[in-house]
């Protein structure tokens, strides 16, 4: 039914906005500021989940729109997250059948590669528009993202089954 379809898109966008919320939420002051390097790219993980689970509904255009919104939210150059999310979405959409077959921890390894790609592109764009020094700290969000993937996967799968999205 048509109603189901729009509700599906709305649900996907709600989870994306929840991811954006998680990526701008301020850490408590008593924690060291360096902990901010561990903050994973929630929106990228959520996008990868939806592309793997519902490749006919969530695709590259959705990833691009989410990326542009994240760019505005974080104040990064418009198109930076757009570009990296589009590339991640492309890889996920071409391999979705294979990724679906993997166990959650195998998927987490794939996620590490995808989120690492995300970080590298982000660094590349930022170093074009301003001074930026490379350090391996840039990979920390990919590591933490890979470790958090099982929880994202389980929560979103539960949500998808509850809302009977297919």
């Amino acid at each position: 039914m048509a109603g189901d379809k729009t509700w599906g898109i709305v649900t996907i966008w709600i989870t994306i906005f929840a991811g954006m919320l998680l990526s701008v939420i301020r850490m408590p002051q008593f924690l060291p500021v360096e902990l901010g390097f561990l903050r994973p790219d929630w929106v990228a993980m959520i996008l990868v989940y939806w592309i793997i689970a519902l490749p006919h509904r969530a695709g590259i255009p959705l990833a691009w729109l989410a990326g542009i919104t994240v760019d505005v939210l974080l104040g990064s150059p418009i198109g930076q997250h757009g570009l990296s999310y589009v590339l991640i979405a492309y890889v996920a959409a071409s391999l979705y059948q294979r990724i679906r077959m993997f166990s959650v921890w195998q998927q987490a390894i794939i996620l590490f590669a995808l989120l690492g790609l995300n970080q590298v592109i982000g660094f590349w764009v930022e170093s074009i528009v301003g001074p930026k020094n490379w350090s391996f700290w840039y990979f920390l969000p990919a590591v933490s993202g890979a470790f958090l993937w099982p929880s994202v996967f389980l929560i979103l799968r539960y949500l998808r089954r509850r809302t009977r999205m297919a």
Partner: protein
Amino acid sequence: MEGNQVKALFLKETTLGYQILGLGVLSLVLIFMDHTTSWLDSFRSALTSVLTPIIVTAELPNRSALGIQDIFSSREDLHGRISGLESELIFFRVKAEKMAALASENDRLRSLLGSAAKLQDNVLVAELIGVNPDPEQQEVLIDKGFEDSVFVGQPVLDSRGLVGQVVEVSSYSSRVLLISDQRHSVPVQVLRSNLRLVAQGTGIGQRLELLHVNSTADIQVGDQLLSSGLGNRFPVGYPVGVVDKVDLKLGMPFSEVLAKPNAQLDRSSHVLLVFTEARVSEDMDGSSAKSESRGGWR
């Protein structure tokens, strides 16, 4: 499921190819446009206004934590705080009266000297509503925007010193680049020796690095740095930082000098937006502020 054909088992590779090519190139074009022109600024500020609820919601936990602290603080604590604030207020009132007398005297002397009178700066109090989650990017969001006539390039202070400048304005919020960001530098003057320098942010650690300090320059630990007002971006005479490390590098042309900002960059929850009357209008268009936020003196 009436009228729907069976879902294809595979996504069409060609469609994916077109999509990634089209949107990837579009993203690159947008990055280029955003970096070199100001065409996208209105789009950005419009979308930021739409996204303000997300930023405000993300700030809720912090706010409610503060609120809970208030609820559980005891009566005696509050009384103590109030009396402390009251005595502080009296102290500052006396100081302000003295200041007014000094300011008028200063103006009179200046007019005798024939130099331009120092303008009174108007300020607007803004509240912090967000912090950039990336620790490398020293930026904060404040709750004032177009509607309060905030402009790009506007200097921002807190009660102790210079905080930064506005780099992006939307209807109800704006983004402030802190002086400790790597992309930011501010022209300063040493209070003791009147030496003019440029202080650049160091990013993490929230320090300022003074650029191109001769090894023979008169600067020492504990020196107070004030904004010099060169470049017409920041008003003259606001405290910027205190020198806390001077490292003479033997054999090198410049010594390494670090300063700690006066402003509580990571702690102040309220900041002041300064409206200087002597505002240079050609400085105000968005493109110049974005690409030349590294101090206005060049």
